[in-house]
C-alpha cells in the first residue's frame, strides 16, 4: 500500500461577480489529479507557475480546503479535518516552505520555532525538548548558539535549513517541499538539497518535491509528475520523463532547461524552436477542445501520458518504449 493515495483531487476557487455577488464561475486550480507516493521515495511534481502544484501540496498537508476527491493516508481520508486530528496527521506529514523568511515567525526565537511541532505532538520535558532542538540544529549543520537568535539573523540558506529542521522535528513520514530552494542562490541550493537527501537516507522520509526547476528535480526525484493547467499531463520514472517524454508540454519544459555548452548553442536553439513549432501547430492534438489535458493513458508499467489512446500508442512506439 502506498504512503499517500491521491484520488481525483479537485480544488476549485469560486469567482463571484454581479450585483448579488453570486458564484458565476470557478478557477480550477487543481482539476482531478490522481497519483500515489510510496514510502521512502522522492516524488517530483513539476509544472509552470499557476499550474496548481503548490495547491496540490497544500491540500496534501491539509492547508487547503479540497473541493472533491480524496487523499488517503493509513486508509483514512485526510481531506476531512476530523480524520486529520484523530490521526495526529501533521505529526507524520510536514511541510517545507518556499520563502524561508516568511515561513519563520520573525518574533520567535529559533528554539521556539523548531520546538513548535514538538510541543504540540510530543510533550517532552523541558530538557529533552531542548536536547532534541540542539540535535536537529546539529543535523542540519547549525551551531548551538543559534538557539536563542531570531530568524532575521541568519542567511537564506541557514533559514531554509532551520525550516528543514522544523519539518523533521517530529520524525515525519512525508515532507511536502514546496519549491524549497527556488529562493536560494545556486551554491546554497546544492547545500540545502544535500541536507534534505542526507535526512531522507537517515530517517527514511518521503518527499513530495514541488519545483519548476527540472535540473533540481532530476537530482532529487525517482518518480515525476508533470502538471499543466491543474491536470497531470505525464507521470513516469526519471528515465521515462527525461529520456522518453511523450507530451508536448513535457518536451517544452525539458527544452527550456538552460544549456551551458556554448559550442552547441545553435543546435540547442534549433531544437527548442522545433519543439515550440510542434506546440504551436499541434495544440489540438495534445489538448482537448477546451484546451485542457486529456485523461492519463498508461503506455508502460511506469509511464502514463495524458493523450487519446491511439496517439499515445503511436508516440510511444516512435520513442521505442516497451508496450504495456
Amino acid at each position, binding site marked *: 500500500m502506498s504512503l499517500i493515495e491521491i484520488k481525483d483531487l479537485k480544488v476549485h476557487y469560486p469567482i463571484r461577480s454581479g450585483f448579488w455577488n453570486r458564484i458565476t464561475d470557478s478557477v480550477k486550480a487543481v482539476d482531478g489529479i490522481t497519483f500515489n507516493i510510496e514510502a521512502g521515495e522522492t516524488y517530483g511534481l513539476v509544472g509552470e507557475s499557476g499550474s496548481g502544484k503548490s495547491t496540490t501540496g*497544500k491540500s496534501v*498537508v*491539509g*492547508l487547503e480546503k479540497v473541493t472533491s476527491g480524496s487523499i488517503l493516508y493509513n486508509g483514512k481520508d485526510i481531506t476531512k479535518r476530523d480524520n486529520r486530528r484523530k490521526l*495526529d496527521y*501533521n*505529526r507524520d*506529514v*510536514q*511541510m517545507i*516552505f*518556499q*520563502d524561508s523568511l*516568511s*515561513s*519563520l*515567525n*520573525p*518574533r*520567535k*526565537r529559533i528554539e521556539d520555532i523548531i520546538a*513548535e*511541532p514538538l510541543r*504540540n*505532538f510530543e510533550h517532552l520535558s523541558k*530538557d*529533552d525538548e*531542548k*536536547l*532534541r532542538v*540542539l*540535535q*536537529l540544529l*546539529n*543535523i542540519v549543520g547549525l*551551531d*548551538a*548558539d*543559534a*538557539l*536563542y*537568535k*531570531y530568524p*532575521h*539573523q541568519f542567511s537564506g540558506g541557514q533559514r531554509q535549513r532551520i*525550516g528543514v529542521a*522544523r519539518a523533521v522535528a517530529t*520524525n515525519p513520514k512525508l515532507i511536502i517541499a514546496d519549491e524549497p530552494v527556488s529562493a536560494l542562490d545556486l551554491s546554497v541550493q546544492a547545500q540545502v538539497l544535500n541536507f534534505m537527501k542526507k535526512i531522507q537516507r*537517515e*530517517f527514511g522520509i518521503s518527499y513530495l518535491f514541488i519545483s519548476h526547476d527540472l535540473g533540481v528535480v532530476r537530482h532529487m526525484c525517482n518518480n515525476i509528475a508533470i502538471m499543466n493547467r491543474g491536470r497531470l499531463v505525464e507521470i513516469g520514472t526519471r528515465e521515462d520523463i527525461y529520456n522518453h517524454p511523450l507530451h508536448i508540454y513535457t518536451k517544452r519544459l525539458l527544452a527550456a532547461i538552460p544549456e551551458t555548452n556554448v559550442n552547441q548553442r545553435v543546435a540547442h536553439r534549433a531544437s527548442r524552436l522545433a519543439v515550440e513549432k510542434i506546440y504551436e501547430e499541434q495544440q489540438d492534438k495534445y489538448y482537448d477542445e477546451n484546451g485542457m489535458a486529456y485523461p492519463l493513458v498508461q503506455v508502460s508499467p511506469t509511464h502514463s501520458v495524458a493523450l487519446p489512446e491511439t496517439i499515445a500508442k503511436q508516440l510511444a512506439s516512435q520513442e521505442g518504449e516497451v508496450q504495456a
Partner: protein
Amino acid sequence: MAENFEKHSDISAADLARLNQEAQAEATPSTAKIIWNEFKADKPAMAALFIIVGFIAFVMIGALFINTPKMMETNIMDYFDKPFTTDFWLGADSGGRSVAKQLIVGSRNSIGIAIGLTVISSTVGICWGLISGYFGGYIDWGMQRVYDFTMMLPMLMMIIVLVTIIPHYNAVSLTLIFSLFYWEGTSRLIRSRTLAETQKDYVAASKTSGTSNWKIIFQGIMPNISSLIIIDTTLSFAENIGVETGLSYLGFGLPTQTPSLGTMIANANDPTNITLYWWTWLPAALEIIVLCLSISYIGQVLRRAADASQRQGAAD
C-alpha cells in the same frame, strides 16, 4: 524514535548544559532591554517617562490623603483666593475650594478613566480585529457588520443621552459607557494588519505544526503586530484623556461634585476667570498639554524599539 535522533547527531544529553550556556551568551537582547536602551538614547523621552510615571504615582497616592467631599464644600470666605499662599498653593475657585487639591483628585479621576477606557477599549478592539481578520469568511462578515453598526451611531450624542438617563453614574459607569464606542478605530486598524499577516507562511507553518487557532492568533500573530498595538494604545491613551476632559468640559462628564481636569478647564468658560482668575483653569490646561506631549514622546520611543531599522539606542 528518540534513538533515531541520537544516532544521527553527535549531541547527547551530556552536552546540553554546556551548549545551552554557549547559546545564552550569543542570545539576542530581550525586548525590555531594547526598549530601555532606546529610552537611554533619547533624553527628552526619558524625561517624559519620569514625568508620566512620577505624576501618575503622585496623584494616585496623593488623592488618597484628600477628603474629597470636605474639599468640595463651598467656603464663601475663600472666594477666589490668590495662589502661592500657605493655605492655597494654587489659589481657590469661585466656591473657595482649593485648586491644588482639586487638581490632584481631578487628575486621578481623569487619568483613571483614561487608563480604564484604554485598557477596555484597546483589549476589545485588538481581540475583535485579530479574530475578525484571522478567521475571515462569515465570522469576519458578521463582526464587521457589528462594527459598521456601532460606527454609524452618533457617538457623542449617544454618550450624552446615556449619561443623562443613567440616574447615579460615577467614574466606573462613565468608563464603561465610553468603552462601548471607543474600540472601533483600534479594531479596524488591527484587522487590516491581521489580514495581511494571516497570509504569511509562518501562520501556515504553525497550522501544520498542529498549533491551535487561538494560540496562533495570540502568540503567533499578535507579537508581530505589537509595534502597531503599542503605538495605537499609547496614542489612544493620550486621546482618551481628552475624551473625558472634553465631555466634562461640556458638562456631560463626571457629576459636578466630582472634580476632574475637564470641570476645571470649564472654569475658563467665564471671561472674568480667563482674565482675572487665571489660576482656576491654567494648571489643568498645562497639565493636559504636558501629559499628552510626554505620552507621544514615549510612543515614539516604543515605535522605534519595535522597528530595528529606526533604532537609535546602543545595540547592546
